[in-house]
């Protein structure tokens, strides 16, 4: 054996003894790897929530109203697109990708496989979140509890407040069989005739409820309702709000 090489091994053994070098305990690595996997799960969940909220925001848009209101598609999309949640999704997806590459053996997988598998996982989880109504709950929770998020969400009070074009949006502050009073964002109290209006199936108008109304402006702060739309249009698609007994919806 090479003399110099023996010296290297001896030097290393001497150093280990002199400096009392010890192998790092196993639990340290378990913790480190565990942290990476937990972080990855958290990032994927965040990504799924962001995409779920993006799905929700996009399905919440009253696409059918656009031609009626005479708004161009570009402007319409610009007004509604959930930029904030899309940006969060991109940031989280990039972090999750690099996080995965740092997990043990993560490097063994081709990049395109990691990206494709990650995206499929996020899309499926986001779809499940959305259709189970969790995305809506998360969105509304953040909207109500963390006012800062309101800056990043489409302001529907304003977007759907176009009385001259036959659209009103606001909160019901008084209601009877023939009319209701709606407080709009300005704020103004609108007297709305609801005698001949259509109400979505399974829905009931109540005080304090937010609502969108299609109809005609009949005077100053006076409106004749033709049709009501739920504040969050996607509601009708979700399990909890589906007609009784329909597709797993509540039976009682």
């Amino acid at each position: 054996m090479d003399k110099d090489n023996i010296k290297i091994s001896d030097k290393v053994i001497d150093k280990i003894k002199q400096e009392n070098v010890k192998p790092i305990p196993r639990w340290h690595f378990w913790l480190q790897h565990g942290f990476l996997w937990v972080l990855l799960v958290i990032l994927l969940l965040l990504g799924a929530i962001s995409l779920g909220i993006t799905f929700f925001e996009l399905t919440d848009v009253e696409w059918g109203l656009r031609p009626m209101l005479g708004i161009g598609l570009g402007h319409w999309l610009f007004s509604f697109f959930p930029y904030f949640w899309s940006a969060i999704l991109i940031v989280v997806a990039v972090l999750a990708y690099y996080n995965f590459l740092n997990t043990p053996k993560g490097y063994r997988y081709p990049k395109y496989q990691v990206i494709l598998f990650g995206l499929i996982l996020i899309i499926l989880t986001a779809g499940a979140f959305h259709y189970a109504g969790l995305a809506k709950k998360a969105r509304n929770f953040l909207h109500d509890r963390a006012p800062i998020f309101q800056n990043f969400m489409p302001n529907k009070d304003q977007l759907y407040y176009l009385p001259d074009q036959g659209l009103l949006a606001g909160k019901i502050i008084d209601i009877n069989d023939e009319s209701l009073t709606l407080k709009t964002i300005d704020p103004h109290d609108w007297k709305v005739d609801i005698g001949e209006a259509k109400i979505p199936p399974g829905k009931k108008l109540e005080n304090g409820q937010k609502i969108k109304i299609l109809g005609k402006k009949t005077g100053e702060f006076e409106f004749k309702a033709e049709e009501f739309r739920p504040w969050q249009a996607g509601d009708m698609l979700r399990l909890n709000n589906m007609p009784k007994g329909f597709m797993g919806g509540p039976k009682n």
Partner: protein
Amino acid sequence: MTLGSDYSDEQLAKAAVDDEAAFYKLMQRYEHKLLRYIRRIIKINQETAEDILQETFIKTYRYLNNFDPSLKFSSWIYRIAHNEAIGYWRRQQRNVKYISIDKEENGLANTLADDETISSELHDKERQEKIVEVINLLPENYREVLILRYLEQKDYEEISDVLHKPVGTVSALIHRAKDKIKKLDKEHNLKDLI
């Protein structure tokens, strides 16, 4: 326990956590190979290479519990040596050349010439030196895989574990490196050498 040569690297690595003698045995198995590998990937003198090797062994010892027995110990320790060498090169970029094969190092040229995808008949010293020159013209990532494949005799999976690249990428790099050698061979008037 008596640590004979019948112990695998993986068994020694497991024993080394509590037994310095086992670690000593492992170092003896790898010191020559790693010292040569370090000097192949960065152009440094013997003394500096030994310092890097010492650091490699100390790090290996400290991280023994992080060794995944489903991998080859050899790939794992090569990875550590690779990282230590690259770390040194990054700190000393102005003074140190990354991956430059010595003209005297004709093993790679011979191996490549023997490879069925590249034509043979490469035996004299002049030809070998010219091929080494051509290899040194390749981008670093190609030279890196060629060294591991043909000088260190690693298979694709081991190279993947050393360089932390997918096996498919390693395979593609080797394939492209060979193509580039053929191309450079023609460009540099070395026709008929390979």
